[in-house]
């Protein structure tokens, strides 16, 4: 029997969805019924920890016996008994369930700064964060360093905003520090809305105190005594953990009046967003906190001059704030040792799509796309690599011949994409680029606030053109119209949403114009995705007459006798692809 047992169960939203709560419960039961709990006593702990990135392998469980860590993957409640009996009690790890090389490869090339404590600390316990050096930054700054010194430190670290635009954080703080004002505000933008992005959610779920600590330092620097976290209401777990963390920080004296006896006071309020993507835009976010409809306004004046209720305001993203305590404790030089000349530090990405290892990754700025996809991501899941979409609906696609590109602010901008908030969707040869562009346009059109004409009506027209192209009704001149209108929308829209909304179209036309041309001129979808242009046929030679396809067909379009080749009635076929997916003999042909 070991002397100390520590069990850490991944309980981010991903982990809980995979059944982590039930796994934790079983551990409680098994540890008590096997007597481990009683014999190890206070040295037996069970922690829920935040996401460590590899969500695809959830539920992930660390079993740490006398300091020796074994990580299990895909754990279900009924597997717990064997782990406790064989591993914890008898000291023989259950090798079948231990993580494989993939897990180690996934982490090997990552450099974790903001995620360094995610998956390690218990997000609902401030002492867990403190035991790993948490709140040391606040302690070393408040009362001991001048705000100017700290701003200088952030400036020299080279930290740039992680929310999309990449504005230098220290400079932003300096702008807000300068004006005299009776009131200033600091806001954490946790209105993460890009489809497929979950960086900010995971940071708050996994280590909320790092965000609070970063905000407190920011508030100290600019002279704000009020702060807001504007967070999506669709992130209930993050909201819950954030609220617990705020309560604990206040109790511990890191928030509230007269922090650490320095005379500096700072309070944070949580403001729930009502699900509008545009509220991630800083001026719309401010309007929303003020109780108005979330619509952006023109800049200048910038929020650092006139922000919330007309007062100087700093708005930074979750990841940006989370970097701050680490920069303060480990030093700006340490931070700027990662990354490229102009893009310092690391960046968290949500790696998704047709890749083997999906999840949350943190890499130094400037790592090549190839390393990310093949070393960390483990390469393609099935198909052939085609492109990567970065930066979500404001971003663009990077084609396969540019796979050696470095992922940093400048390099991605050069090829027509952006780092953005960190979405990274890997596409393979079964993805239609026109359809991908359409997906993002549908999103931005739906989320346009309606204030300015080019975004409100223009994106609708872009979408209509894409609709007809994917429906096989594209006309010659449509590509040119998309390019002209797209450019006009970029040049004339009010805020970042409209100014970037055409990017997915413009970049796919730039690199995959032939696909657009095939749709329009040949009425053919090269990736065989766009339904209207698809024809499913059954290959007579390959069909064994197993009837599975006929059973799967929702429109009774497939007929044939048992053990004889079947046929599809094209008039009845709704092109759902059920037959294609069901057939075990590759007898259904799609083109």
């Amino acid at each position, binding site marked *: 029997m070991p002397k100390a047992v520590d069990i850490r169960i991944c309980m981010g939203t991903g982990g809980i969805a995979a059944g982590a709560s039930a796994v934790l419960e079983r551990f409680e039961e098994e540890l008590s019924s096997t007597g481990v709990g009683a014999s190890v006593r206070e040295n037996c702990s069970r922690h829920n920890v935040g996401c460590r990135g590899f969500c695809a392998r959830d539920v992930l469980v660390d079993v740490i016996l006398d300091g020796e860590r074994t990580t299990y993957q895909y754990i279900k409640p009924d597997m717990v008994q064997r782990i406790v009996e064989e591993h914890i009690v008898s000291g023989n790890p259950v090798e079948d369930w231990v993580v494989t090389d993939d897990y180690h490869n996934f982490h090997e090339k990552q450099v974790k700064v903001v995620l360094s404590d995610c998956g390690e600390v218990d997000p609902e316990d401030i002492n867990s964060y403190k035991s790993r050096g948490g709140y040391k930054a606040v302690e070393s700054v408040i009362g001991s360093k001048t705000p100017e010194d700290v701003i200088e430190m952030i400036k020299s670290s080279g930290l740039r905003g992680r929310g999309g635009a990449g504005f230098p954080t220290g400079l932003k703080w300096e702008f807000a520090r300068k004006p005299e004002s009776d009131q200033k505000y600091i806001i954490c933008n946790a209105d993460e809305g890009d489809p497929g992005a979950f960086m900010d959610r995971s940071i708050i779920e996994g280590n909320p105190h790092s965000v609070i600590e970063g905000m407190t330092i920011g508030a100290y620097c600019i002279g704000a005594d009020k702060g807001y976290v504007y967070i999506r209401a669709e992130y209930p777990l993050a909201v819950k953990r954030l609220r617990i963390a705020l309560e604990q920080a206040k109790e511990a004296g890191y928030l509230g009046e007269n922090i650490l006896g320095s005379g500096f006071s700072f309070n944070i309020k949580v403001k729930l967003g009502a699900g*509008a993507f*545009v509220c991630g835009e800083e001026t719309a976010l401010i309007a929303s906190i003020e109780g108005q409809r979330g619509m952006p306004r*023109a800049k200048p004046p910038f929020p650092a001059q006139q922000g919330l209720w007309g007062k100087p305001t700093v708005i930074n993203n979750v990841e940006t704030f989370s970097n701050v305590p680490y920069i303060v404790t480990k030093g700006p030089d340490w931070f700027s040792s990662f990354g490229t000349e102009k893009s310092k530090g690391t960046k968290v990405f949500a790696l998704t799509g047709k890749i083997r290892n999906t999840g949350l990754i943190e890499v130094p700025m400037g790592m090549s796309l190839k390393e990310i996809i093949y070393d960390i991501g483990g390469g393609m899941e099935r198909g052939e690599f085609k492109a990567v979409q970065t930066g979500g609906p404001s971003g663009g696609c990077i084609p396969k011949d540019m796979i050696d590109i470095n992922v940093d602010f400048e390099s991605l901008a050069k090829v027509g994409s952006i780092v953005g908030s960190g979405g990274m969707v890997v596409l393979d040869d079964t993805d239609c680029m026109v359809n991908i562009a359409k997906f993002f346009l549908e999103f931005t059109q739906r989320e346009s606030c309606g204030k300015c*004409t*080019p975004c409100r*009506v223009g994106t*609708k027209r872009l979408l209509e053109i894409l609709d007809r192209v994917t429906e096989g009704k594209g006309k010659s001149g449509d590509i040119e119209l998309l390019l002209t209108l797209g450019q*006009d929308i970029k040049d*004339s829209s*009010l805020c970042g949403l409209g100014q970037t909304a055409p990017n997915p179209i413009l970049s796919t036309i730039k690199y995959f114009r032939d696909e657009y041309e095939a749709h329009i001129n040949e009425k053919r979808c090269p990736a065989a995705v766009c339904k209207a242009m698809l024809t499913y046929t059954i290959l007579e030679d390959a069909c064994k007459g197993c009837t599975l396809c006929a059973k799967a067909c929702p429109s009774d379009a497939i007929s044939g006798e048992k053990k004889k080749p079947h046929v599809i009635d094209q008039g009845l076929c709704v092109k759902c692809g059920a037959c294609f997916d069901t057939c075990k003999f590759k007898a259904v042909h799609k083109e």
Partner: protein
Amino acid sequence: MADRINITIDGEKVNVDGGLTVLQAARRSGFHIPTLCDDDRLKPYGGCRLCLVSIEGIPRPVTACTTPVTDGMVVETSNDHIERLRRTIVELLLSDHPNDCMTCDRAGDCTLQELAYFYGLRDNRFWGERRRYEDDDLNPFIKRDMEKCVLCGKCVRVCREVQGVGAIEISYRGFGAKVCPPYERDLNCEFCGQCVSLCPTGALSGKQWSGKGREKDVKKIKTVCPYCGCGCNLTLHVSRNEVIRVSSEPDTINEGWLCPKGRFGYEFIKSPDLLKSPLIRKNGKLEEVTWDEALKFVSEKLGSIKEKYGPDAIGGLSSARCTNEENYLFQKFIRAGIGTNNVDHCARL
């Protein structure tokens, strides 16, 4: 007032007030920049994007209505790129507009129509889905035809910024964005009609004047509102010898703002009960008389009452519909002329 500064607009050096926006400075210096969402009386908005201009040193075109002037600024109000963007914006608006100018009340007085004319937009590269609404308010004043709305937001802003009511707001998102009362209920506000007065298209109009004549056919007569002592300036729109609408110009004492009575309450002009001359009751029956006769009659009666019962037997009650000057004269008449302090005013009742 801010200091005066020098800026250059379209190559011409002009000296302007430093507190202005580029749009205000350009207009005051005689340059035309098209807009749909701007009104000098409202806060800058930057929604329609038509007032985009090029400013030296700024990489992107910016909206003139939201950009403050700075000393030495070099502004270009028009160039090929700017005109291309403006044209696209107007074309986009027209692609989602009923384009039924033939039957629209606002034809000839519509900013969108003017813009379409200016850019010669007959065909449209962007024809597509059009918003369809069936708006039928029960109120007797304001007619809403939201298919014609260009989302300039003026109505929303005047309601909040000037009137302090906030009866309408933009709802929904994207292409479906729509100005409406909360939960799309019927309009239930003060019916001041400021929104109607600012609408650049036919989206908002007065039910009373709908279908009664277009701007080019009306004769405009300036007058002063008779309802209260404020003395708001009115412009009567007269067609076929009938007042069909009341409006007010922005450069008046009331800055163009009116109350529901001033804007919509003009039907009494046509009332058969309207008094056109003084009446005196003779033998139990009211008879029309001349002003001379009426004044003589009142003067004699007041004189005889004062003589018989003393001045305190008389009291004067004045009206809020009179101006300050008229009220002053009236109390002077009662106090000095009649000799009593029995004078009061309906606003105290």
